[in-house]
């Protein structure tokens, strides 16, 4: 690739950006995004952040148009059983019929006026560093619709916000953009669930989903990002968070499906005493590729972060994990931990993991650990010796490996939804699942 020439996909994406209509006050952000997007070098194998994740599928398919809403997607969907404010987007387009009435705290960008618009202008595109995240630049360029959640100071969002993004198969490969901005003022509390699903039939879309989060002083957010699309979809996304003083973020994410799925978590501890608890699961199978990149930046003293990711990789799938902890100078008394465990269940499966520490302060305690292996043979033997058939023992151990994190999920509806679905991944035979408990 020559330096200055931009790739076909970059070109197409710019054309798509031109087709989007949006409020005038978003024009600045969009232009900046387009500028960055078109001037950026397209990632190759030598680009550190994309070393193990080829973007060839994006180039090959050619996503020349925006997706439109088509029929018969409703029947295939099963959603969380939860009393929440539900927003449904189909191929990036808001679907009012299936969505709840919006409470005062939730505003769509197009309808934002006055105070809400001021909040968007203050924060949108400011949390994410689009110079470092190529697809965030693209998201900026593509911003038209989006959702703002703004919880005023010292208030609690009554019902969880449940944002569903449905992708459906379309006649030609098509593109969808998803943008979310969550702003919790000082002392506010909220729970947000992002749920990405797709119809069971052949998928061919590309989804770019970006979430920016600001958690104010002493505020607390529970955030879930469930990426449960089917086989062939391409998904690039990110969750970018600023934590103010004594803010707390408890986050859970799961990824399954997709020929290419890349999700970035960037959490900036900007105020003293901020806390992060981030847990993740990834379960690529068949020929899927799932890539999680997390970067936790400790910029001030006295913050803590705890991060645990478990992955089970089967068939010819590939998992990539990159967990970076960055401690700025003066961020003394930081406690940061990262653990990444991987199970390989097939001869053709592959895991590439890189837990990184970059530390510029001395009075800190940081640790990371990573393991890659197959199921523990001793544990298998133990179960077999207790009369449990091998196939069932394998299912139990596989499920146990992810259930370790699933059990800690705070929202019961998420637990109840994921438990049986994930168990089925390990065996379609319900006989083998009879001893599993999902609570």
């Amino acid at each position, binding site marked *: 690739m020559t330096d200055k020439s931009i790739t076909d996909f970059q070109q197409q994406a710019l054309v798509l950006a031109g087709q989007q209509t949006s409020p005038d006050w978003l024009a600045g952000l969009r232009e900046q995004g387009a500028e960055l997007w078109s001037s950026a070098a397209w990632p190759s194998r030598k680009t550190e952040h994309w070393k193990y994740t080829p973007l060839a599928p994006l180039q090959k398919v050619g996503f020349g148009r925006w997706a439109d809403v088509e029929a018969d997607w409703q029947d295939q969907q099963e959603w969380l059983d939860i009393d929440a404010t539900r927003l449904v987007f189909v191929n990036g387009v808001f679907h009012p019929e299936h969505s709840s009435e919006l409470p005062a705290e939730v505003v769509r960008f197009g309808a934002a006026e006055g105070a809400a618009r001021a909040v968007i202008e203050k924060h949108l595109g400011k949390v994410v560093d689009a110079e470092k995240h190529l697809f965030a630049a693209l998201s900026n360029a593509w911003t038209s619709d989006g959702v703002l959640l703004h919880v005023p100071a010292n208030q609690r969002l009554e019902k969880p916000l449940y944002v569903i993004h449905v992708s459906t198969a379309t006649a030609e490969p098509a593109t969808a953009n998803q943008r979310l901005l969550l702003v919790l003022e000082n002392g506010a509390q909220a729970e947000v669930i992002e749920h990405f699903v797709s119809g069971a039939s052949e998928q061919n879309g590309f989804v770019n989903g970006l979430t920016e989060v600001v958690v104010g002083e002493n505020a607390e957010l529970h955030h879930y990002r469930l990426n449960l699309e089917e086989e062939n979809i391409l998904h690039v996304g990110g969750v970018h968070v600023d934590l103010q003083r004594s803010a707390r973020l408890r986050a859970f994410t799961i990824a399954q499906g997709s020929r290419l799925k890349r999700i970035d978590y960037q959490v900036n501890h900007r105020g003293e005493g901020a806390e992060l608890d981030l847990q993740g699961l990834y379960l690529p199978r068949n020929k899927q590729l799932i890539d999680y990149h997390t970067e936790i930046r400790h910029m001030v003293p006295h913050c803590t972060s705890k991060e645990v990711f478990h992955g089970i990789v089967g068939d010819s799938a590939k998992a990539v994990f990159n967990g970076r902890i960055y401690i700025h100078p003066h961020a003394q008394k930081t406690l940061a931990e990262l653990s990444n465990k991987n199970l390989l269940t097939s001869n053709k499966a592959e895991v*590439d993991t890189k837990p990184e520490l970059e530390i510029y302060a001395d009075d800190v305690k940081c640790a990371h650990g990573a393991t890659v292996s197959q199921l523990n043979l001793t544990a298998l033997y133990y179960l077999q010796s207790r009369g449990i058939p091998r196939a069932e023992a394998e299912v139990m151990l596989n499920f146990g490996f992810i259930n370790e994190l699933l059990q800690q999920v705070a929202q019961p509806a998420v637990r109840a939804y994921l438990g049986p679905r994930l168990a089925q991944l390990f065996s379609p035979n319900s006989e083998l699942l009879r001893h599993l408990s999902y609570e």
Partner: protein
Amino acid sequence: MAEEQVENLIRKEYAAGFHTLIDSDTLPPGLNEDVVRFISAKKQEPEWMLEWRLQAFRAWQEMTEPSWAHVSYPPVDFQAISYYSAPKSMEDRPKSLDEVDPELLRTYEKLGIPLHEQEVLAGVAMDVVFDSVSVVTTFREKLSEAGVIFCSISEAVQKYPELIKKYLGSVVPQKDNYYAALNSAVFSDGSFVFIPKGVRCPMELSTYFRINEQNTGQFERTLIVAEEGSHVSYLEGCTAPMRDENQMHAAVVELVALDNAEIKYSTVQNWYPGDENGKGGIFNFVTKRGVAHTNAKISWTQVETGSAITWKYPSCILKGDNSVGEFYSVALTNNFQQADTGTKMIHLGKNTRSTIISKGISAGKSSNAYRGLVRMNPGAEGARNYTQCDSLLIGDRCAAHTFPYIESKNPSAVIEHEATTSKVSDDQLFLCQQRGLDAEKAVSMIVNGFCREVFKELPMEFAVEAGKLLEVSLEGAVG
């Protein structure tokens, strides 16, 4: 925190800093094909060797300097370096130590390596590289009785061309990387070791390197071949005189361990790290790699305390089934030193095993990074890796990093990686002080304890030296 003590530590002058005045037969700075030809001619090398160098040189011209390491330094002007220098008194080769330039001998004495004594007492054969040319090689006879070849690489090119042709570049090819290519083109000298089938080398082999000539790059080339079932332990130690200008150093070490052989390679590196303002110091860009065939074992142990810039990743390619790779490292940086060092363990064969123990200590304004790769290829059935990287921070202006790459393509392979970073804990210090130790002694004890797992892998002679080195560098460094 005892700021003053840290300052004291930082101000500690480089103990081995002095400069020997010997006339040198030095090439003017610059690098082109003629320089390569000159070096080759000077060493009376055969045509094939020259051709090999030229291939490397041409490849090097096409390559660009790598920039991925976590170090920063002013660009190196490769045309400002002189690529050959030899002590003048080399014109007629000394037959024994008595004929050696007395100035030279005094240099070694200052460094605490009296050759005479070592010959007799330590039982260590010395292949001394004094600026590019081997000055004297001792214990040759005793080794040759066992069939062991231990000589300078230029001598090996003359005497054992078949072995050199077969193995040189077999582990680190000419085009492997920028610095390896440069080294292949202009390597001045180095050591060649050959252990025949089933022989256990009767003594530990050792080379002391010194960089002595101003503005002279040092490009050693070391090749160790251990035939089936043989065993060798090789020691390498470095120290260089004090000076202001940066010196480039790009060495290549190749190890070949054939079936059932074992090679243990130990390094103590104490090159001039630059002064307290970050001025001067050696740039150390080293490529070290070994290939282990069936049931063979390669073990790297290193204590890195010197150099302004360290770029060094001693690696093992575990090619044969059941082969074993080990990497034990202590890397200490102070003042403005920067180190980016670690290892690569490439598992190809079945039931291959590797262990990585890395201890990084950073003080002052230095930066210390561990960068490692563990790769399980599809054929690495039942392979095993254990990695532990610990970093210790002393002072709040230093930095410690860990960049481990872990790649697995075989489900039956097991990889475990752990890393921790912390400072010398106040509790530990308090405990020691409360038992009557002064703070300095306590820190020294704690740091020594921190490095113990690595030190115990070092041969006796080196273990003592290594402990001393750390003590010199860290006295008074109370976190």
